[in-house]
């Protein structure tokens, strides 16, 4: 039987944890592509994503860490494989940070638990900053650092569109 999409705040927090850990795992795979300048920056982003997952686990009282989202890692594999040098790897990081921001904003449309709300509210701005810093490394123009204009996107999908986040319906926690 296929895993069910999240139906409670705790389930949704577990989904977001699994996405954070999947992104951290993706960065581990990309790391050899980064030179001396970008490598510590992306590594720090990865540490942040693990910290975010741990924070969400803490506020939900989880005793066992949620694993990286397996379905998402499978879906990301071709994009990771397509990154063959630092610029292409940074472009992927830029896209993933924007997609992670959208995933958090989407989750907020359903969350009601005060502690989980608070955790997500302190996490999303960091993903947004990651995107800007990565865009700076790429030399992206200022307007393009705001891929959804004046507001963060709250749309999710299968993630093929880099302007949307990752849907818990496409990537349920296994």
């Amino acid at each position, binding site marked *: 039987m296929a895993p069910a999409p999240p139906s409670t705040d705790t389930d949704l927090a577990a989904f977001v944890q699994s996405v954070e850990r999947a992104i951290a795992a993706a960065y581990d795979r990309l790391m050899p592509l980064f030179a001396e300048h970008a490598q510590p920056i992306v590594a720090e982003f990865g540490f942040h994503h693990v910290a975010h997952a741990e924070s969400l686990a803490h506020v939900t009282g989880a005793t066992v860490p949620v694993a990286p989202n397996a379905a998402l890692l499978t879906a990301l594999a071709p994009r990771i494989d397509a990154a063959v040098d630092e610029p292409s790897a940074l472009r992927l990081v830029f896209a993933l940070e924007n997609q992670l921001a959208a995933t958090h904003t989407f989750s907020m449309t359903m969350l009601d638990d005060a502690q989980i709300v*608070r955790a997500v509210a*302190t996490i999303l701005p960091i993903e947004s900053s990651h995107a800007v810093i990565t865009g700076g490394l790429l030399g992206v123009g200022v307007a393009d650092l705001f891929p959804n204009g004046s507001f963060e996107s709250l749309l999710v999908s299968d993630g093929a569109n880099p302007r949307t986040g990752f849907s818990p319906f496409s990537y349920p926690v296994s």
Partner: protein
Amino acid sequence: VSNPIGRRRFLQLGGTAAASAVLLACTKDDPSREVAPGPSTTTTLPALPADPVDRVKTDLAVTLTLASLEVLAADTYSKLAASGLVTDVTLATTLALFARHHRDHLTALNLAIADADGAPVDQPNSTFDQTVVQPAVAAATTQGDVIAIALTLEGTLAQTYVYGVNAATTPARRSQLLSVAGVETRHRAVVANQLRPNDLGYLLPSAFAPDDNPLPPDALVVP
């Protein structure tokens, strides 16, 4: 039962008047010293009113306050653009983009305010303007001073939005505020990254955004 003192207390809980403090810490030689408030040290949620009616009023008060800050930010960028202090074309374009975003945010907030039977906001936050922004604008003599003011405005707005998420009463309101918090944080990161490119200790001093109230006392706009 309405409890204005309780609402005001809510917005002041955890407040450090950090914005005015950091702006005063700015120097002309090093605008990057003007930073948004650091990571929150708050470990518990602010005491939200227990009464559902008061919670809705608190939500409205925070929204009115945010709207007044958006007016202030857009107006301040217009003044700075006209001041002749901004000589770099990229910075001028950047601040114009930010001003447009702030006007979009104001429009969205005023729609939410109208839904709550409040009066639309078209005036800047007088307390923050008089205690923080006006003195800084009056003293500004260099482009570095302009950047310092932008950092203060964007850092304060971003943190107040994160703070406001916790005061909002519905998921729809929370997601709206969070979607703006992310963009205000991007604004701050853009300016900060121009000052100290890729200096992560400066750009991201923590893995988590601060969520306590950064506003000076009496900055709350009470309906």
